[in-house]
């Protein structure tokens, strides 16, 4: 192997650091290659090496490179990790020693706790309806939190709406047994490398993980774990790991920031964050926010709505189906 260029890692996710500390030597197989990131598989984990224009993700490492093309990696290649250095097959290496270690775990980045704010939810809904995400987020128009909006759904929304709303009904009633069954009817559905419904579930899980932790910690954890188990066989490898991370409270930095911003009463910040998240993927950002919105509604209703109101809203849901 010829000595190549040594890149530096700028940021390292704390979970990846912990994982590597326990493994002085590791062979990582290239799973997928994109313009600004590479996914590697090792010991059942998906590890992401990304360029500096990306933000940090769980089990991720950001390197001082603008695009990853110079690394010349292809699917199936082996990257060798040895004592803080990732050695690429073409001779280059990535030095992890100087990286700043950051947490991408909600439990560690949590700013404060408070109740769900209705105006924040309305802002998310307005953003979603003003954004042609292409995934399933148009379904926000049918949720009767505020005025129903009559607009055509795309093929994905039309196909999945009944199962998805049934899932929400069950989750809202804490009927997790039914909700898990229904999750099996939405996981893996929709466009994108991480299918839309998986992005949606990531939003649901993250918000419930954060906001409902004190009330139903064990029930939630069990519910999330069952979703992850289903996802293993029914969706893509990348999407499965995304859901697995969400069930452990881990996600992209900006996803976590949105969850936090819902509680720190800073709507200007929330607006900025929503715009940032909406830039993710073709539909991933909007579908994730749709999940956040729906989970927010569930929690808001639990906190604020009278039985009569809830029944009225459920009647409306039945009506629009």
């Amino acid at each position, binding site marked *: 192997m010829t000595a190549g260029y040594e890149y530096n890692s*700028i940021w390292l996710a704390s979970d990846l650091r912990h994982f590597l500390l326990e493994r002085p030597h590791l062979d990582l197989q290239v799973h*997928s*290659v*994109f*313009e600004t990131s590479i996914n590697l598989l090792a010991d059942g984990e998906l590890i992401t090496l990304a360029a*500096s*224009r*990306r*933000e940090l993700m769980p089990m991720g490492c950001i390197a001082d490179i*603008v*695009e990853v093309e110079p690394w010349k990696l292809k*699917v199936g290649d082996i990257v060798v990790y040895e004592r803080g250095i990732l050695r690429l097959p073409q001779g280059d290496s990535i030095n992890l020693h100087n990286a700043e270690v950051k947490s991408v775990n909600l439990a560690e980045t949590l*700013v404060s706790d408070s109740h769900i*704010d*209705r*105006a*924040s939810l*309305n*802002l998310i809904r307005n953003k979603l309806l003003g954004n042609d995400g*292409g995934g399933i987020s148009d379904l926000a128009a049918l949720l009767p939190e505020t005025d129903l909006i009559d607009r055509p759904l795309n*093929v*994905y929304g039309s*196909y*999945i709406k009944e199962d998805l709303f049934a899932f929400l009904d069950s989750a809202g009633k804490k009927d997790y047994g039914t909700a898990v069954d229904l999750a099996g*009817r*939405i*996981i*893996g*559905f*929709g*466009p*994108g*490398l*991480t*299918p839309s*419904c998986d992005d949606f579930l990531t939003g649901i899980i993250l918000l419930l993980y954060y906001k409902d932790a004190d009330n139903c910690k064990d029930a939630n954890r069990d519910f999330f774990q069952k979703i992850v188990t289903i996802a293993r066989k*029914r*969706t*893509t*490898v*990348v*999407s499965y790991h995304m859901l697995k991370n969400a069930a452990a409270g881990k996600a992209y930095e900006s996803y976590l*920031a949105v969850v*936090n*911003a819902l509680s*720190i*009463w*800073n*709507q*200007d*910040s929330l*607006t*900025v*964050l929503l715009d940032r998240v909406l*830039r993710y*993927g*073709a*539909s*991933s950002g909007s579908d994730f926010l749709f999940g956040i919105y729906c989970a927010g509604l569930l929690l808001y209703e639990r906190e604020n709505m009278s039985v009569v109101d809830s029944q009225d809203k459920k009647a409306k849901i039945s009506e629009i189906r």
Partner: protein
Amino acid sequence: MIKAIVKENAYNDSVTLMLISREVQKLEGVEEVLVGMGTELNLDLVKTMDMFVPELEGVTPNDLFIAARYDESKVSMENLVAAFNEEMNKKKESGSGDYQPPTLDSALTHLQGANMVVISIPGEYAAEEAENALRQGLNVMMFSDNVKIEDELRLKKIAVEKGLLMMGPDCGTAIINGVPLCFANVVRPGKIGLVGASGTGTQEITVLVHQQGVGFSQVIGTGGRDLSEEIGGLMMIQGIEALMADPETEVIVLVSKPPAASVEKKIYDLVKKTDKPVVIDFIGGDADSIKEAGAYPCLSLEDAARKAVALARGEETVDFDGFDADETEINQMVEEAVTKLKPDQKYLRGLYTGGTLTDEAIKYLGENHEIYSNIPLTPDRDIKHLENMKGHICLDLGEDQFTRGRPHPMIDPMTRTEFFESDVDASTAVILVDVVLGYGSYVDPAGAVVESLEKAREKIAAAGKDFVVVASVTGTDQDPQNLNESIKTLEEAGVVVMPSNAQAVRLVDRIMKAAAL
């Protein structure tokens, strides 16, 4: 014809695939294109749409598929694949231009030579980023709020030590080298330099100067806490020194709420050192102290603009506290307004989005009327002391208490719309509003006011009533929303549009006195 192609273990950026599938769908003869990963549910969708073909047998969740239904007399699958590949290549080529750096360091690598950073992230993270920028020799404009005052002091000390600007936190307005930043209007370049600790105050002065044909060298924001005892006016002083040294700047304007006493003295000491004329509007501040420093005190934001323009033109300054229109015309407007009102219409509703504009209104109107507010002149005029809304109200809807959990009303009119619904009723006589244009502001603030007004009018129409509505528009003919269009929208809805906030407030004062409100 329905066909599909499968790429095993293939991953492409989903954004690229979605955009491409939309483009391919536009081809003549193409009825439907589905692109996705081969999950069970995605294949169910393909089946539901009667697009399942043998090529899709055995597809796994990690395989990419492209399924298409098309009219083969007009297009072939080969054409589709070719179009797909062509679009894919286009995206690849254009991808490099769409670079959105996620970190300060990568942004600086991408844009070599940049010397200013605008920070607009949640306040709890903003100080760290600002310090990083300052340490690298970059000027900072911090739009973020909720930054600790000790962090602000530390950052400003670093900036002073390095000879940099640290505008903010909570700095909403600046125009640096002709570039409007955050909430700012499009104004012409010129000889006037401004340092402001007040967002909409700065905007009002800049647009009024622009409307008189004069422009700005630099407009520097400081953030609202800069002139407090704790911060000591570090950025106001840094800004004044920069403008004193700037050969393009011939007149200096300072705008702020009254500074802490110790800060005020430091500013006046500095002002005494420059030969350049300095116009100071410390709204409600002591005019004699300003005169003693050799500067020009002002009666209003508009007066500050007029004095700056006169000085830039080498003319004498004159105090202005009147109207552009002649007295006969104003009297006629007052008479028409009074005639319009029924005896039980008694109250003023001032619904402002700009803090300094509200402040200016309350200080003027508060001299002659009992005005209740969330930023009252005296504690007993706090809105919480007003029972059943029976009294005159003037609100700064941009204050934290109204923006918790929602955008600033200059960005999103929702808050003011709600106050139109809750606070304006049959007992309302006069409605006073500001309409702030420019970058950062809502796309059509005038239209939003008119929409709220029409709804409010519907509620009282049956009683044969209407309101008197007075507005001013803070904007220029070159702003994205366009000043003239906004004025036209308001006037067509029967709103009296005055040339400045000060004149709008004076007119309302005259109407209230004439109608004995």
